[in-house]
């Protein structure tokens, strides 16, 4: 089964050529990097300062990487929608818990009504009163 769309962190990547085979989700290293930022290195899979050793079975004979296996290793929730060929990978509970309990306000980048992007980090140095609302 083909998977063409991956939601990872705050990014959505379309036009991928990932393949679902059982509980494996195979991506070429190029697609893996494009969709997730993880790169295949001699040490294993790396992103930023973090590297994860490539376990047996995480790579197929074509050199593709099993993103589903990496997500299981990292404790990430994975939700899929086969009718759209789309998979979403969330943050692990430990990641979210560590972020929140560190009391460092988690950053985010969102658009205003004109589509201009703003990040919370832009307001460092000021007190911020942030509040949610909804039209509903």
């Amino acid at each position: 089964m083909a998977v063409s769309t991956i939601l990872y962190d705050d990014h959505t990547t379309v036009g991928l050529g990932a393949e679902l085979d059982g509980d494996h989700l195979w991506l070429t290293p190029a697609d893996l990097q494009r969709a997730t930022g993880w790169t295949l290195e001699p040490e294993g899979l790396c992103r930023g300062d973090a590297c994860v050793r490539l376990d047996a079975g995480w790579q197929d004979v074509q050199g593709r990487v099993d993103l589903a296996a990496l997500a299981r290793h990292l404790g990430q929730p994975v939700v899929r929608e086969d009718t759209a060929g789309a998979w979403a990978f969330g943050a692990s509970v430990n990641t979210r818990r560590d972020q929140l309990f560190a009391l460092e306000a988690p950053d985010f980048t969102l658009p205003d009504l004109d589509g201009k992007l703003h990040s919370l980090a832009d307001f460092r140095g000021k007190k911020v009163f942030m509040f949610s609302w909804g039209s509903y």
Partner: protein
Amino acid sequence: MEFIAVAFDTGGKAAVEARIKSADIAERPPVLARLMGWSPDLWAKQTPPTYLNLIDEAHIVGERYGMVNVPQGVWIDEAGHIVRPAESAGTADMVRHMNRETFEVPDAAVNRGIEIRNTYIEALRDWARNGAASRYILPPAEVRRRMRGPEEADVRAATHVRLGRHLFASGALDRAKHHFDAAVRLCPDKWHYRRQSYMLDPESIGQLNVTPGFWAAVDALGDESFYPPADFSHAQ
């Protein structure tokens, strides 16, 4: 101090623009003055917001800050530290007392709502004036104690919502609803997921939900509060 409003609205700009722009403000029903606790002076001064209004179609801020409803507020100091975690931002339980035909609220509930709102605003003003010396900011241990720490269900629900938002934007409304409903089942206490899940149909985007399904969910709360007031006992 910077004010940042974040609309948790999968309908995006179409859902929220009218609420923010001046045309809608001019049409605000006077009953809102009662519900919001605005004096005649404040009512006369109403203008479109001048602070930053952001749109969060996938409710990511809700996940990252442990929010469970809208509106909720978070206080963040100059160093980027949370000094009050997500809590009701001066909102009272009007919805529990509202007449479901006329939307009128009894005087006693209105007065209680005004008291809750004014208490919150006074605390916020105190923090604006006094910063780290404000008695309303909380020590780190108390901030952590009050936080709704994420569990597996929370991160999985947030992932369903992210995918649901993607499907909604792609026009796959039924599948989007399926994922929002999954999030509601995982986190039934997160009202912003539940309320959003009711309001995904194109004809309901941007509308206030007063459907029987919403009222039934409110009734199912029993004695629990829809908007538990912010706890300022630490400041006494």
